[in-house]
């Protein structure tokens, strides 16, 4: 509707119609422009990884987004509002101040035949982070993660010098039909890469002034309840994909290479579930 066309008059009806029409056009165009500008800014600021994780987290089923304090029984139900980054969570800070996580009694936790050394921190995406004497942090897959991927068909490690960020991609692993990104537990710069057989994958130099914040990671007595929940999730994922859930039914323990035990299963779906990549 244009003012210069034949038959157009500046009357109230036309003005209202034109006003509404151009307002709609302006709203749609502004929405697109704002989205495009924000996207450009995010790309320039290298926030694509962070956005990717937030998008993934949003797509996780509600039972997979539960707060760590639900796992330990402090809450009946609570959904994490910070995409598993407890460094920005006031509730977590208050709870930890009130009731610090008890130190583990043993040097390692033995859960369903899997070993979880307690000298390190665990990320809910099945990685661990251990502070080394030289101030660097070693990153590896936890025992359950190792068993899920067995001997990987391929690993894509970031070259030294790459910056990794918490909940961003640390490295990618391919196993059979599965191709998953493994989440980084820490912020920093990769200084060295390992191998799947070597027990660790990355060595990271902390970002900033060398002080690393581990508040978002699980440790000590938190590991056992988390692992129990993870075993439940694994069993559900396996039963959905493989149609068999006998893994734990008779009191057995996960085998070293779970993928090999389920040759028919859609391993991509199982790994996506367990490594939090929906």
């Amino acid at each position: 509707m244009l003012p210069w066309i034949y038959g157009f008059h500046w009357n109230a009806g036309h003005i209202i119609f034109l006003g509404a029409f151009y307002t709609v056009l302006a709203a749609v165009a502004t929405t697109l422009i704002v989205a495009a500008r924000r996207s450009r800014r995010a790309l320039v600021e290298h926030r694509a990884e962070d956005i990717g994780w937030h998008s993934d987290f949003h797509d996780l089923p509600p039972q997979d987004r539960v707060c760590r304090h639900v796992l330990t029984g402090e809450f009946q139900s609570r959904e994490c509002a910070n995409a598993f980054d407890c460094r920005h969570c006031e509730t977590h800070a208050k709870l930890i101040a009130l009731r610090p996580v008890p130190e583990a009694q043993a040097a390692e936790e033995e859960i369903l035949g899997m070993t979880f050394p307690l000298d390190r921190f665990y990320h809910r995406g099945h990685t661990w982070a251990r502070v080394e004497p030289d101030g660097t942090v070693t990153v590896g897959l936890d025992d359950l993660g190792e068993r899920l991927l067995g001997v990987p068909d391929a690993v894509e490690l970031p070259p030294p010098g790459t910056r990794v960020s918490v909940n961003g991609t640390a490295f990618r692993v391919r196993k059979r039909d599965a191709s998953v990104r493994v989440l980084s537990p820490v912020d920093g710069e990769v200084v060295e890469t390992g191998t799947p057989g070597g027990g660790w994958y990355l060595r990271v130099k902390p970002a900033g002034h060398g002080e690393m914040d581990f508040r978002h990671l699980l440790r000590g007595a938190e590991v056992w309840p988390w692992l129990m929940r993870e075993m439940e999730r694994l069993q559900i994922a396996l039963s959905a994909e493989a149609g068999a859930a006998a893994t734990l039914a008779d009191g057995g323990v996960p085998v070293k290479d779970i993928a090999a035990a389920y040759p028919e299963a859609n391993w991509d779906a199982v790994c996506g579930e367990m490594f939090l990549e929906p």
Partner: protein
Amino acid sequence: MDKDFITRGVRRCSPNRFFLWMAPWVAMLGFGLYSAGLCLVKGLNQTNMDNRFAFGLWIFLDLTVIALGAGAFFTGFLVYILKLHELKAVINSAVVIGLVCYSGAVCVLMVDVGQPLRAWFTFWYPNVHSMLTEVTFCISCYLAVLAIEYLPIVLKNRKLRQVPSFLVFEFELHKLVYVLAGVGTFLSFFHQGSLGGLYGVLRGRPFAFREGLALWPSTFFLFIISAAAVGPSFILLTTWMVEKITRKRLVRPEVLELLGRISGLMLAVYVLAKSVDTLIWINRTSPGVGFPAWQYYSWNPFGTWILFSEIVIFGLAPALILLMPALRRRRGWLVSAAAMACLGVALNRFVMTVQTLALPTLSFDKFLWYTPSWQETGTFLAVVAYGVLVYSFSFRYFRLFPDERMLQTEVKTEEVEEPLEMARRY
């Protein structure tokens, strides 16, 4: 290659099977495009419409699919404006249905109007006195809004989101989707109304002519309410059909029941308003222009059964079924009522177009018969095929039902509860 584009964890048929499913629809689309091409190249002499019978199959199709596609705006309004988060389970599917319906309607309108090379005239040289100008503008704008709403669904595809700029743009656009939902609601509200508003100026057709409030005839409001009523029903119906065809659980039963309840409520309001409108029309509007209403129903086959069917069988009955929790919980009743509601709106649009033109109004007029030509039918079928193709493609490669994966897991979970208890004890 194909597998890389399919959402992780959901099951889809093999590419060969998918091709077999698509092939007949592609053939139907090809036939339809040929028919439409004939109409565009040779002109409207390919149709059985003429100056006297200018509302045919295509206008009936347009009005019907636009009403059925209203589920997109109404569900968007419920999810993003009224924060009815349960319906997030079907919002993507609703957007695809809306896009298919509106784009199909626009394509058929282009064939109907003819002169496609001058299609832009309607925007550059609009007839400021025509109500259809408002409809054209609103539908075009809303189609653009639907296309923008469809964009995040496409960009969220597993393979496409590996491109950082797609991932980021999808994320940022999704954060602003409530603006689009608001704009879509505004546009839909007005163009559904404007389609009905046409009958306020159709004085030469007393069967359809309606009076109302100020500028707006009663049909302005009836078209809005009926579209909002059947939109959720059509989403319910398509979801159920997709579940049956693919043999998968896609949404929780409560979501379908909620859609049914909303549809039932709106349908009840519509039936009430339609009944009042019919009574006013019978007792005042029609006699006022010299036509006792019974005259219209003396022409076979359009007897009073059609009015009864429209209001009672396909209006009141589904409304009551959808409003009764006990019946709503039973899938057969729920789906049947939704189908009846959709048929009801189709019947209403048929009455307002084809029946309206078939009835004689002048003393020398005769009752007119109209049967669509094969070219018209082909074009109609092209829209159906196009809809099935776009929806099938979207269902295969995009995440139309976010709960699908979770429901797939839940089905199996019931079988493993006991072992989990054992694991806990261990």
